[in-house]
Each structure stands twice: as structure tokens, then as C-alpha cells.
């Protein structure tokens, strides 16, 4: 992303809307400026701000008059008055930032808009997480911190050392140079993204081991981690297997997304899943 200096009037609205705090008013040039190393190309500024197309000279003059008389100008806070943001032509490896940060851009490896896959949200038709299994989503950088692939790689290599298999259709997996070791392509390790999700699946008896491993790696990385744990319910819709493990580890379970099982396979050519016994009590 770039800011057209001819248009920018340094109103400062954009400095608040950047999720990474990467936009600031450069006092030397009196224009909004982007810290390109911190910018994750999420396009929140370009897509989220409403745009007016006012004359920049006129707006600067008005602002100057108000400033001179110490009058508070109180415009709408979600507007760029001169439409000063202009998308860049992104090249590799910087384009990776946008793929993981702008939710409107589908990732080529998944076709899914966003940073992960369908995971348990379509479990009723995909059968991805089966009885006796736990699907983990390990998300880095959200909310509002961001993550570099060098940190994400630390988690991936630690998981790989435990023999964990990564979800094949996941965007992070697609950027690994060696899936067996969890190594990520060298040329993107310093790229920063708004968030990225590593997805794995293990048997339930390994759930505690994985969480303790995540705790260990979290101490070595400079970002926040959000853990999601997906699991199949029994035929009564109950889940009394994984929740006790999580509670034993000290988690207070407050929120979840619940797949209510109304989906079915309707594409004529799609293979039907094997009938699954769901008695896990």
C-alpha cells in the first residue's frame, strides 16, 4: 500500500485504523507515511476507510485555518477525505503479506477466503476430525500484533519433531520447504503477516502433549497465539472427552463454534464419506 503525497492532507484518520499501527504522520513532510516493514498489506486502510474526493489544497487550507484558531475539527473518523491510499503492485515475497492479511483475498492453495481452511466448520460433510481425534488451529499474530514467519517456523519445527502431520490444504503448509521438518521457505521468513494459522490433527491421547508443546514454544516467540481445538461430539451431541482435558490444563471454556450437523454432500461427483460410529462416551 502507498499513500499519494499529493493527495494526503495529514488528517490522521488512517493512523488509527491501521491494525498494525504502521501509519504515522511524518512531521518533516506533514504527510501520512507507512512503515513498510510493519505494514502487512491487509488493506484495512484502503478497503475500510470511506473515501471522499475533496480537493487537497482546499482541505489543507481549511485545516490550517482551524489549527490557527485552535478550533477542533470533528470529522467522521473513518474517512480519507482525499482518497489518498493507492494499492501497490506487490511482488514476491511481499505478496505473501497480503495473502495472509487481507481477508478478501482467497489463498490460492485453499480457495478459502481467510487464513485457514474449513476445519471443523464443515466437519459434517468433510469428516476431517473424526471420533477419537482432535484438530488444532494454532493462530499467530491475532489480534492486532502480527507475526513473522520466522516465529511461526519455530512452532512448525517443534511440532514436526513430534511427528505431527500438518493439514495439507492449509496456507502455511503450502509455504513449507520441507513439510517433514516444518521448515518454511527461507525467502519469506522475515515477512510479517496480520495472522497465520497452522492446522494439525492428532489422536485425543496426544492433546495434552501438544498443548504443553505450544506453551513451551510460545515463550520463544514474539507474538500472541490463539488456540482452537476442534472435536467430534457423540450421537447425543455431547462432548465429554476433550473438554475435561482442557479444563484440567487450566482453560476456562467460554466460547466455541458449534457445527450443528445439517450439511450433506450434494455434488454429484463427490465421494460419500464412510459411515462413522460416533459413540465416544
Amino acid at each position, binding site marked *: 500500500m502507498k499513500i499519494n503525497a499529493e493527495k494526503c492532507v495529514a488528517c490522521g484518520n488512517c493512523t488509527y*485504523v491501521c491494525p498494525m499501527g504502521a501509519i504515522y504522520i511524518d512531521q518533516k513532510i506533514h504527510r501520512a507515511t507507512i512503515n513498510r516493514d510493519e505494514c502487512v498489506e491487509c488493506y484495512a486502510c484502503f478497503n475500510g476507510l470511506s473515501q471522499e474526493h475533496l480537493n487537497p489544497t482546499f482541505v489543507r487550507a481549511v485545516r490550517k485555518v482551524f489549527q490557527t484558531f485552535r478550533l477542533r475539527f470533528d470529522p*467522521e473518523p473513518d474517512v480519507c477525505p482525499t482518497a489518498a491510499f493507492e494499492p501497490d503492485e506487490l511482488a514476491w515475497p511481499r505478496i505473501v503479506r497480503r495473502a495472509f492479511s487481507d481477508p478478501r483475498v482467497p489463498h490460492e492453495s485453499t480457495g478459502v477466503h481467510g487464513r485457514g481452511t474449513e476445519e471443523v466448520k464443515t466437519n459434517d460433510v468433510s469428516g476431517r476430525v473424526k471420533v477419537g481425534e482432535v484438530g488444532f488451529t494454532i493462530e499467530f499474530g491475532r489480534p492486532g500484533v502480527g507475526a513473522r514467519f520466522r516465529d511461526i517456523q519455530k512452532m512448525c519445527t517443534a511440532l514436526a519433531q513430534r511427528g505431527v502431520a500438518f493439514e495439507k490444504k492449509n496456507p502455511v503448509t503450502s509455504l513449507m520447504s520441507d513439510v517433514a521438518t516444518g521448515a518454511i521457505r527461507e525467502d519469506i521468513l522475515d515477512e510479517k503477516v496480520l495472522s497465520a494459522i497452522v492446522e494439525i490433527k492428532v489422536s485425543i491421547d496426544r492433546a495434552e502433549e501438544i498443548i504443553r508443546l505450544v506453551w513451551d514454544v510460545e515463550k520463544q516467540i514474539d*507474538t*500472541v497465539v490463539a488456540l482452537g481445538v476442534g472435536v467430534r461430539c457423540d450421537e447425543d451431541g455431547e462432548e465429554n472427552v476433550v473438554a475435561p482435558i482442557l479444563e484440567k490444563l487450566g482453560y476456562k471454556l467460554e466460547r466455541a*463454534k*458449534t457445527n450443528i*450437523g445439517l450439511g450433506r454432500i*450434494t455434488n*454429484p461427483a463427490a465421494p460419500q464419506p464412510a459411515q462413522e460410529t460416533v459413540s465416544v462416551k
Partner: protein
Amino acid sequence: MTNTLHRFGPAESFRDDYVVFAMCSKGRNDQDSLPKLKRFLELALAHKPVNLGDAIHGGALRPSKDMNPSSHWHRDTAPDFEGVIQGLTGPTTVAAVFDNRVAAEDFVKAVKDADLGLSINISTSIDGAEQCCFAAGIPRHSVGYSLGFEGATEKLPGSKVMMLSTMCGHGMVSHSLAKKLVDWVREGRRTPEQAASYMTRFCSCGVFNPTRAARILEEAARGESQ
């Protein structure tokens, strides 16, 4: 995509936050899914959602690319639900957001009766989703727990700002904007509803809950910590 899973707050804080979303699975039930996704959103209208959205085009309140300067005094904050439905162009995730459990329960019942064949998920407190399933007579199929945020949590802001910014799970609502709007409501420069509408426009898939946001803004402006 975990864009509604990791909303910050205790279970009780989701009493006015029920996100019900529908999606198809690539290669399994995505063919001819467009009319079903539209039907899902149309069914939601009868239950008075506070937001509707699709993951490609956005929610019921969107930024303008050609805003009239007079909008500063007469900003339209009415959600355009029909626009969301008519703007749907292909398979994606669609969501309906409700601010009370009864509406969510009734909507889930309607979706069950419509038998769309899409995967339907409820994102709210664990108890809230269970109650919706119970009311509709549906056993839960799968559940995805949020274990919250860990690691370098010293980089995160206070709880009220977190509760606001995490309502856009894609991270399009910045902590700075949420904090600024808390301050503006505290100063009386904007109403909680106006402040909530600004944040709603940044959410790119329409799952932001403006009712919950207005409540949180009001609480934060009064200095309530939780």
C-alpha cells in the same frame, strides 16, 4: 478461518452475541450453493438480525468509495440487508448476527426446516449454542473450542478494547480505532451507536455485532472494566 471463534470476553458477555453462519465445502456441496446461501440470509431477515454478511463482499454496513461531504452531518447508519443478499455472487461463507438468544434459536429452527444441506455453525458461548441446538432438537455434530489468547499477551490492550476489536476476527478493526472510539463516547463526541457503526464498516465479512459493540462502548465510557 476462525473469524468468529476467538471473540474476547467471558461467556456472559456473549448474551447479546449469536453468530450463525453457513458455508459449503469445496468439492462436496458447493455446486448450486448460491441459491441456498441466499435462502439462508433471507430466512434470517424474519428474525431481525443486527448484521448480515458474506466473506467476499462484506456486511450490511459498508464503507463508501465516493462519500458525499454532507455525509458528515447525515451519515446513513441503516444496515442494507437486501444489498447483502442481492450482492452474493458465488460460494462463500455467509453469516447472520443476532443480539438475543430467542432470535437465534428461532432462526436455527427455520434453517433446520429449510433443509439447505449446507454446514451450519453457531458461534457464541458454549452454553448459548447448546441451548440453540436443544431448542431446535439438533444434537451438536462438532465443536471448536476457543482457548483464548496466550504467548506475548503483554502486547494486547485492555479487556474492553479487546472485546471490541476481536469482533472482527480478521483483525480489520484495530485496537487503536476501538480505543479512540471508547474515548469519543466518553467525551460525548459520539453516541455508542454511532461509534459502533464506524467499527462495523471495517469488518469485511459482516460478523461484527454493532449491538454488543454499543453496549461495550457504553460500559467502557462509564469506566467499567468488565
